[in-house]
């Protein structure tokens, strides 16, 4: 059975400057969010047990054809991309509809993996929307995943705030992972070079049959919080402690 890892291309937020409380979106460098990379690595580790391929599935703008190489270098066997510049800024319900249509184009999907949240919006809702559209079992916050071939079930240890639960579910299923599940691998130069030659199927909006639902949200404002901190440089521990003491903080 094949494993699909759904990954969201996001701007590399650490490199984005904020000007007048808004992000400067010129020369954006794209990457995948860290939890998506954990999901990819989880797929790499499960691939052998499920006996199939690891397919990277992404929806987004045309930069994806380049960005996806990162994922192919880190262990994805193939990629299926739904790309169009009109897909630059989709709501979760729109992305979910496109992901489900794309999943229909992939054979023998046993497991769909997500990170616990995307690298930019981090709403964590797409995993549930996709699971509902597929009517598949949904398991979130996986810290350990193992596959039992005899029963065709997965056993997942999932991390909640106060407990760790062990749950089982039959495949096919949808699972989201937490960062603790594994360490993201850094591809070697050879792997990066090979990535360019791995198969990529690319669909455009014209190829899509689903009528996209409307957006669910109207964004009233999206601004960097004001930072009115003092930014006082202190040159010694004494100076620091004196300052804190004068403010009755210690």
């Amino acid at each position, binding site marked *: 059975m094949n494993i699909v890892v759904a990954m969201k291309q*996001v*701007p590399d*937020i*650490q490199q*984005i400057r904020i000007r007048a409380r808004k*992000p400067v979106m010129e020369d954006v460098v794209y990457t995948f969010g860290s939890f998506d990379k954990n999901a990819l690595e989880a797929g790499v580790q499960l691939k052998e047990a499920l006996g199939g391929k690891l397919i990277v599935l992404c929806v987004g703008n045309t930069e994806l054809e380049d960005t996806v190489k990162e994922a192919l270098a880190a262990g994805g066997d193939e990629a299926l991309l739904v790309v169009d510049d009109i897909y630059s800024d989709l709501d*979760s*319900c729109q992305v*979910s509809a496109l992901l489900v249509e794309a999943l229909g184009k992939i054979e023998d999907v046993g497991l769909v993996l997500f990170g616990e*949240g995307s*690298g930019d*919006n*981090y*709403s*964590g*809702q797409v*995993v*549930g*929307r996709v*699971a*509902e*559209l597929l009517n598949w*079992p*949904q398991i*979130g*916050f996986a810290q350990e995943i193992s596959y039992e071939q005899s029963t065709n079930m997965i056993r997942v240890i999932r991390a*909640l*705030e106060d*407990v*760790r*639960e*062990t*749950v*089982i*579910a039959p495949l096919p299923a949808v699972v989201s992972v937490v960062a*603790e599940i594994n360490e993201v691998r850094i591809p070697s130069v050879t792997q990066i070079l090979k990535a360019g030659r791995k198969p990529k199927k690319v669909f455009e909006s014209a190829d899509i049959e689903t009528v996209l639902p*409307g*957006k*669910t*949200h*109207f*964004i*009233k*404002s*999206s*601004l960097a*919080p004001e930072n009115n*901190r*003092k*930014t*006082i*440089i*202190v040159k010694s*521990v004494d100076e*620091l*402690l004196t300052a*804190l*003491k004068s403010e009755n*903080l*210690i």
Partner: protein
Amino acid sequence: MAGVLIYSNNPNYLMELQSAAAVIAQGRPVQTLILSGINSADSIKVENLYICRNKVCISDVGVVAELVKQAASQLNCDIVLLSGDRRGKELAGRLAQKMGAGVSTDVSALKVEDGKIIASRNAFGGALVEESIIVMNAQIFAIAPKSFAEAVPINSPIKEIELTIPDGVVELIASNPKSDDAVDIAEADTLLAMGCGFEAQSSIAEVEKIAAKMNAVIGCSKPVATDRKWFSEDRVIGISGKTCKPILAVLMGISGQVQFWAGIREAKTIVAINNDENAPILGMVDYAYVADLKDAVPHLIDKLGPKGL
């Protein structure tokens, strides 16, 4: 007018959600749903409390979503408030898809303007705060813990609600409480944060001395917990960890990544100690001290002694 339905598996968060509902209800009826597995169901004190007595596996998100959807329909609610803990977040998307609703998660604030509910949440990795309105009538909000104070308990009889329990597909085999400490970094008045600037795990013992002298609690940046495993995840400060608002935060060996900053930026006073004079954090805080932690930490221990300050 369609009402507001509150659902959570956590009795404390249920009380916070009552306060959140009060902000947005605008005269709508507010109802609360609990499922039978919840801890101390009989001591939950809210009005219009409904319990579904059937035993269900709440780890099966599809089942819980179906039950909450049925309850919302039966009780004529088109707005649902969920807790923003992991159980609430995993439910949010599935429930929204079932109800044809829009959903906002990790909501830190709510207000109503011109009859529209405006939710605030972090966006863009935590770099921005977004205010948004859900365009359809069916709206779901998963509220970040501690964003609202717990409401005053109200004694009220529990009512039963009959729901059709769907077949489950996820089975719970074991449930193991985390043996982590009882410290909640989000409750601390003084918080010390350890970042990747520390080289050796033995540093923790040294920082603990500072914490003891300052009556502080220690938290960390995400990589220190998930990659280095120096701390458990509940010590992580940031967008995927905890949002902390201490009176004093001392950030040590922390560069100032966006996802971390979102979890500490509302602290009253922030100090940063970092040996890299170009570290972004130094321009973001109240007091910035460029120093090698190997010198700064022992100095702090020394100066914070009983003889010092």
